[in-house]
């Protein structure tokens, strides 16, 4: 399994990925990590030391909100959900990201003649 450290993620990417994950459904911390790993087919593996500070920042910035609920196996867990502001931010960042990645792909894929 390729271990991808979040520090080598593009700055802010982890935030965007968490927002995307929560856009599908509210989830607790462990679930978010698991979902990221699944969706990325194991490319991103986020450890707790990175995940929880990121969640705290997003919560403080008002992009996600946490509530305590019963989990599927009947424990109390903190479930995070997107706020309206978080949804807007995700939309904006997704658009920015797509533009950038298209641009980057174009540069990387350019042949000598085009440059």
């Amino acid at each position, binding site marked *: 399994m390729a271990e991808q450290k979040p520090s080598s993620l593009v700055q802010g990417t982890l935030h965007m990925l968490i927002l995307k994950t929560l856009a599908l459904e509210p989830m*607790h*911390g*462990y*679930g978010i990590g*698991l979902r990221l790993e699944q969706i990325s087919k194991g490319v991103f593996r986020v*450890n*707790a*030391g*990175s995940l*929880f*500070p*990121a969640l*705290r*920042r997003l919560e*403080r*910035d*008002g992009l996600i909100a946490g509530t305590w609920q019963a*989990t599927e*196996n009947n*424990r*109390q*867990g*903190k479930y995070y959900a997107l706020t309206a502001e978080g949804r807007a931010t995700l939309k904006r960042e997704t658009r920015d990201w797509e533009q950038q990645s298209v641009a980057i792909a174009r540069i990387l894929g350019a042949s000598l003649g085009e440059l």
Partner: protein
Amino acid sequence: MPLLSRLMGGIAGLLRRTKQEQELDLELQQFLETSIEDKVRVGMSRKAATRAARMELGSASAVKDGVRDAGWETVLETTWQDVRYAARALRRSPGFTAVAVLSLALGIGANTAIFSLINTLMLRPLPVSHPEQLVQLLSRYPGEPRLSSFSWRHYLHFRDRNTSFSDLLATSRARFRVTGDGVPRETIDGEYVAGNFFTSLGVRPAFGRVIDARDDQVGSATAASAVVSWSYWTNRLQADPAVVGKTIVVNDAPATIVGVAPRAFFGLEVGLTSSVWLPAAMEPLVQRPSRLMDGSLGVGMLGRLRPGVTIDRALAEMKVLDRFRLEDFAKSRSVAFARDFTIELEPAAAGFATLRDRFATALLVLMTLVGLLLLIACTNIAGLLLARAAARQHEMALRVSLGAGRARLVRQALIESLLLSAMGGVLGLALASVGARALVRVILSGRDFARLQQPIDIQVQPDLQVLFFTATIAVLTAVLFGAAPAWHALTTAPASSLRAHGAAGDTRSRRLFGKGLVVGQIAWSIVLLSAAGLFVQHLSNLRNQELGFQRRSLLLVTLDATGSGYRGDQLFVPYQQLLGRLAQIPAVRAVTISGVTPISGAGASRFISVAGFPESPDARRFVPLNWVGPRYFETFGTPLLAGRDFAFTDRGGPPVAIVNQAMARYYFGGKDPIGGRFQFVGASGSGVTAAPPAQAYTIVGVVADAKYLDLRETPPRTIYLNAFQEPRLFVNELAFKTTGPPAAVTDAVRRTVREELKTVSVARVTTMDDLVDGWVVSERVIAALSTFFGGLGTTLAALGLYGLLAFTVTRRTNEIGTRMALGASRADISRLVLRGALGLVCAGLVIGVPLGLVSRRAAGRVVPGLSVDGAWPLVFATAAMVAVAMVAAYVPTRRAASVDPIDALRQ
């Protein structure tokens, strides 16, 4: 991200800290359990799953730390920790803290005091709309201070013809005797203003209305209007809300109060606040004869530049328009006189420039000196902090090895510096407000101001600009002196310092740096000391220069005969008798009377024509004159070089005059001036008193040259006339040559005057010494303060030297012991330490003396009349520095010499 929500979140985070910690614990617990269950579900044993999950999670406390560090409030929290830590550390060494805070307070306080004066006098903009568009019109005559005064007639010419200004306003200061219903009878200061005064400044009334164009017509219904100032309204009119419409009687003319000026508006000149403003059109009602009607009313002018018009373009236009004024001068005075006048424009955002002009140089010099002082204080504290850092090496090393980050240590060192400078800054602000007020008092005691009718009142309350300035220099100094210890913290090598604390880590480069700091302090101190020497010398040159008369033991008493009932032509006999009585007072050696007291700043002058000396009207210059009684030259100690003195018996005889050497030389060359004749021509020049009729005067005596108008002039050609030969006696300045201190005869003089002339009062008593001192106030201030700052800087440098030497001796105790054991005598050891001290002083001299030379040349360019060639200020500075350094070296040297070799080697 909205800053506010982030801020709120952070603050809430600080408050909810405990609850959040618990939640985080729960959350992590849940994470771990879910992870374990997941692993069990895919087939791991519970034990193995728990182990794996724990490893994946990592240290729970590390995760928590990460979460905690996620917000800015952590920075705040650790900073607060550092502040408390620094405060504890400073409390532990009260001696160091006291010295550092005190020297900072003096440095910052001195800077703040001088800056607050500069701010008040030169920087603070007027409370009007767009003050930056305002320019002042100034008139310059060579060799004289710039004048802000023009004639009303010329104002009208400029106002109606210029295209550079959207508005050109005029104002004329005056004192008014006011009275009226509910108005206290008193004399107040105010201004006559042109109709556009308030509107062009954009000053809106607090209530009522301001003076405007409709009040500007002489004889118009509303010409008799008045706007009163906020402070006059509150302090004198009981803040009467129904004040508008009331009548105030100015001199004898009633005027209607139409409005109250806003609270912030005090007039256009710092220090000269106005209580009332009247339309210029009211002047003919108040003042008889009117000076507005003949156009001679003196006014100051401010123009508001039109958008896009530069000051240079406006000046070019004003120079053309100014020809009108110069032609006027050529007609009334002389072509030569008019030719020398020029007009100038100057930005006037801070108002009229009179006070600015007078003090700009002194304040600039003082600001430089206090800047230097602060630099020395900074260097000194940097040295102290460095020594402290060396002593705390062990503590730092321990903290590094316990996991403190380098950044944290640097931050801590800087916070300690900031804390010191903050304390110094607060204390300095307190010192500054006391100092600035004292400084204002001293400055205003000057001759220039004693002559002004209106008392000057400069308020130097620290405002936002001053606070900002102080905060800025406090932070800057902290960074300046904190850089060294911060660097020290950054380069601390934990391993070596832990191994053997004390000498370890004290590298050669660091020692050199410490020495460099002391050398720097010595060099700056020499610059300060030599500046002090320079200004003290300058002051003593000014005070002790040849005046042409004796300044010592000369009492000056002004009589006032206006309400005495005597007419001018009836005073001859009573005054002659009075002089006779006054001469009998025991301690009085000689007494006389004159119309003008020399160097009092006031005088009279006229054109003359000398028989046998053809002179074209254009080449004429005003000749100063004085009306004096017999024994004038004896009393003042001015040598009579030829001929005779005046006598009371000259009265009724042919008119006689005495001239000074400069006059004799110019008009008579090598010939004997005695018996020469001249007469006055044309109108009277600037000055006082009546115009003598055009009769011929015969010169009967020649006296030595003496200063006439002020302390700095070269004695002009001067004519003395016999006061007792004039048609009326109008002279009132008594002068007494005394045998003892002049003030001692004051009572006897007052008594005699009262007995002899019951209705003549004594208006003013002073001495020639005070008069001379009054001319050199800013020089006195600069000399006194530069001496004080020089002493302070030298003390600090000595302290720095002492600290370094003491530290070095302690460090080298072992070495000294070894030397002694190998046969070095105590004298050898003393020499060793002294040589070190001398080396530092010499290095300081090598840097300081050239700096002193350069800075003194710079000072010579800024301060007029400063002689920069003398060697003794630098010699004095060097000698003083060496002497102080030797005193500072004394204790460490003795300690080194008294080292017991056995004890030292055992260590």
